[in-house]
């Protein structure tokens, strides 16, 4: 068994081990999603040779040199290339992507522009409340709130490693020392973990309950309404009381709050709730539960390189922010490079449809919608298994991935491929 860091989701669990024997994989500690991630190593559908689209539209295997030449040529000749994906790649790879974007004066964007953009807009990152490590939540998280987040189905081990069950410095009894609140509009699996189960009713339910809670915390003489968003007064009053008693409140939020028509109104209220709870005697923290493993790394690396978190256009000097998604839809690009993420599967339909029409270069370990449509497919080593690097956990914590076996013959790491691509592009200019 080899110790490893799982790249199956943004928790990057580092207490797990795996053994790979030709066609057999065994693991200890990995959740189902994580084990599934490692299964790519033994998968029979693994991409193991570069593919080039021939004139009849069919993919034919080519040499790595041929494929790299073709990819370099496409990027070099492009008037406006898009370099998209990145959030499952280590930071070193993202850095190379930015360098390539600079040398071809293209647009660099990661999946973070969809996942993270709204948060930035609403100032939900960078503040004191957002500087919180998961270890801190494990050690102090006396009251933990999941709002529109369903970690039991998205971040399987969040509850057991950090947020609900483990003992910690100020959490002597584990689960019993914590109060858990789940607020959602569906009765998710995570709801079952909670002491306070708030399954809301009505379109503006989040707004109503957030306002009522803030009101309650700020102190009011007015008699409470009988119910708010389908939650009886007694329930949310007791939640308010528990929150006031806590010394530490950790709030996690997710897609249930982010991608809804009411998001513009709910996010400022969420911030207000957190600042109301933050007092001299109580710390309240706020973290988004982001899905793609290295989204935070993609944001950090892009910020360091361009002062922008994502979506940067290198055609201007200095590079300026842009809306890559709008650019895709309006057909501004003439070539796209997709790294790691299955861009066609991930993007909203209109963007995916527009992207599909372009000559695509795809870096991927497994076949996907994007590789199916790509002009050039470059097979890559599996991050965390055959390729190493630096990544950032969902809370920003830096982790180092150490490869423990070599990729299949004919397969290179993303880092090697992009280094060679950059070389080819700069050599000829």
């Amino acid at each position, binding site marked *: 068994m080899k110790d490893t860091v799982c790249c199956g989701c943004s928790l990057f669990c580092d207490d797990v081990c795996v053994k790979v024997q030709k066609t057999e994989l065994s693991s200890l*500690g990995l959740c189902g*999603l994580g084990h599934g991630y490692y299964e790519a190593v033994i998968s029979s559908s693994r991409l193991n040779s570069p593919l080039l689209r021939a004139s009849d539209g069919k993919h034919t295997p080519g040499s790595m040199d041929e494929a790299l030449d073709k990819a370099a040529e496409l990027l070099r000749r492009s008037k406006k290339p898009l370099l998209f994906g990145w959030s499952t790649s280590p930071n070193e790879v993202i850095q190379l992507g930015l360098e390539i974007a600079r040398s071809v004066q293209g647009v660099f964007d990661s999946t973070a522009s969809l996942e993270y953009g709204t948060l930035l807009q609403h100032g939900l990152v960078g503040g004191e409340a957002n500087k919180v490590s998961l270890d801190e939540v494990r050690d102090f998280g006396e009251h933990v709130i999941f709002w529109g987040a369903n970690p039991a189905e998205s971040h399987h081990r969040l509850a057991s490693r950090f947020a609900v069950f483990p003992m910690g410095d100020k959490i002597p009894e584990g689960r019993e020392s914590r109060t858990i609140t789940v607020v959602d509009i569906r009765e998710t699996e995570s709801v079952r973990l909670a002491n306070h189960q708030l399954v809301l009713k009505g379109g503006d339910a989040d707004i109503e309950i957030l306002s009522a809670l803030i009101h309650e915390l700020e102190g009011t003489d007015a008699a409470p309404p009988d119910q708010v968003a389908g939650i009886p007064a007694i329930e949310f009053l007791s939640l308010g009381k528990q929150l006031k008693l806590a010394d530490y409140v950790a709030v996690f939020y997710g897609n249930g709050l982010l991608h809804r028509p009411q998001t513009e109104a709910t996010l400022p209220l969420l911030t207000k709730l957190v600042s109301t709870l933050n007092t001299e005697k109580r710390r309240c923290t706020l973290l988004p539960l982001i899905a793609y493993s290295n989204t935070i790394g993609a944001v950090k690396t892009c910020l360091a390189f361009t002062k922008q978190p994502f979506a940067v256009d290198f055609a201007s000097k200095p590079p300026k922010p842009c809306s890559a998604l709008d650019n895709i839809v309006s057909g501004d690009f003439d070539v796209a490079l997709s790294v790691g993420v299955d861009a066609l599967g991930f993007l909203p339909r209109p963007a995916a449809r527009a992207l599909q029409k372009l000559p695509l270069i795809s870096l991927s370990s497994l076949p996907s919608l994007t590789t199916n449509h790509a002009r050039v497919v470059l097979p890559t080593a599996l991050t965390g298994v055959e390729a190493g690097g630096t990544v950032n956990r969902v809370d920003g914590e830096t982790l180092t991935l150490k490869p423990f076996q070599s990729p299949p013959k004919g397969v290179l790491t993303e880092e090697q491929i992009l280094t060679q691509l950059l070389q080819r592009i700069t050599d000829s200019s």
Partner: protein
Amino acid sequence: MAKLNPMQIYKLLPRTNCKKCGMTCMAFATRLVLREVSLEECTPLTEPGYKEQLATLQELIAPLLTAEETGIKLDEEICSGCGNCVVVCPVDAKSEPDTAYGKAARTSETVFRVENGIALIINLSKCRRFPPDRVNCRVCEQGCSAGAIEIW
């Protein structure tokens, strides 16, 4: 034996965390199901206003006093490998102390261990429900949000 989970109990307690019983209401609820504390220790329940809740509580815990045949089943089909069971099981905490702090079980000493993405019961006989302990522990069932663990 009647299925009883601490959350049912918790909802009927005063939920003030007054700590007259020496712990929080949630801790009290859990211990009550384990038969480690008795209902009388929550003195606020005898205060006015809790009469109905007290009666329901007494009814609920009555079957606990006669625990007999028992077993645990883990449905591998719906297990997500989340590891909640590993972390909450008090036996695992003793056998491999790091698990209580959220770490994956890596030895062969625990009751639960997550292998190949699925939890397995590798030492059923260590479970506290069996002799010599015979306590009415249900914390793994309670912590499994997927509903994969069944205890009878």
